């Protein structure tokens, strides 16, 4: 199944001291994303399939096996979506 991810329009985000801080628009809870999570977030354009993002933003930059990276990215995307930080869809997400 092809999945697409987009940054939620409700969040606030800033890189502070090299770490990406994101505040959920749903409940104002704060999240600190590590480097790989931040790479996923930044590449979440709603148009590129998740697998493509993993290839381009994760595997090309970090020393990780593709299958493992994709499984981790899917789990992370679901988790961030639960907190209202990412939108996950089976179709491209218009901006």
């Amino acid at each position, binding site marked *: 199944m092809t999945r697409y991810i987009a940054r939620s329009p409700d969040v606030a985000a*800033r890189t502070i001291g090299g770490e990406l*801080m994101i505040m959920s628009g749903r409940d104002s809870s704060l999240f600190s994303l590590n480097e790989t999570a931040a790479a996923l977030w930044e590449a979440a354009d709603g148009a590129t399939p998740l697998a493509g993002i993993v290839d381009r933003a994760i595997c090309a930059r970090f020393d990780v096996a593709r299958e493992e990276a994709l499984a981790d990215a899917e789990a992370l995307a679901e988790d961030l979506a639960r907190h209202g930080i990412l939108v996950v869809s089976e179709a491209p997400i218009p901006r």
Partner: protein
Amino acid sequence: MEEMGARALEQGIPLSVHLDLTYRCNERCVHCYLDHDDHGEMTTAEILRVLDEVAEAGTFFLTLSGGEIFMRRDFFEILAHARKRMFAVKLKTNAVMVTRARAERIARLGVESVQVSLYSHRAEAHDAITKLPGSFRRTIEGVKRLREQGIKVSFANVLMKGNEDDYGHVRALAREMGAGFTIDPMITPMMDGDRGVLALNVDPERLSAIFRDESLTEGAPRFSPTPAGPAPEEDAAQMLPCSAGHTLAYISPYGEVFPCVQFPYPCGNVRRQRFADIWKDSAQLAEVRSVRLADVEGCSTCVHGASCSRCPGLAYVEGNFRGPSIQDCERSYAITGVASENLKRKKRVIWLAAAAA
């Protein structure tokens, strides 16, 4: 949040910026510290550029306030740009001009929260303070519209002579409307230093009772009834007075940069310099940042030293930000009934002056 603040402090990042878009207002609150005439506010283009600069400096929390924010016709253009730059935006308003369409736009733009000034649950008491007939009704209607959109709202209840007995009812109204509630029991001087409005402060005995009102924190003591004692020497040498100028900055509608909205010490102007340059290079900000509790005359050894909420801005308005703020000394006295070192000294000076006369 604490970790984020600590990281910002360590890296010299202005984590929070308070930007007043205008000092114009549709209300004329009796205790207001502002001059409401327009002396040349920043243009839309200037404000959008400042928001870009502030975002680049690393600011996460942005408060848009005034005056009344809806007095600016370009308010939504400014708000949309702020959200595009991904600030966590808090609005401060009296909500009088919040129509359904405006509430919907605020919700769509993903504002973090809205703080609304409410002085009483009684329309006549609220309107007597705002000097705007019908303002209570319109504020409540505005808040209802915001809440209908699921927007987080908090009432700011400033207490003064005339509404000091109403805070319990305002809090009940807040609960009924699904809003938060904060209380500010002390009036601060005008930005130009005029202290005339301080006459509106509630009487010391009443203030003391308010500080000791356990219902304000659901049974838990709001403040320690006994002084916490002087801060340990090694702590005092490190303790910062507050976040003003360290991780917090204030920008006026005219582009002036101050350490905080309550600390009118001019540090630069974004019309002449980039915000980041002022933040990094201002000699005035460096001076503000150099102060530690141990440097404040009388405060480091004061019996309230470890628990005092001394505001350097109030101290500045009183004449010296390296000195005590007598208004905070009075607050500590109202909470505990124990006079601070500086309050005792002030009383001695008054007594000596009276004796000499």
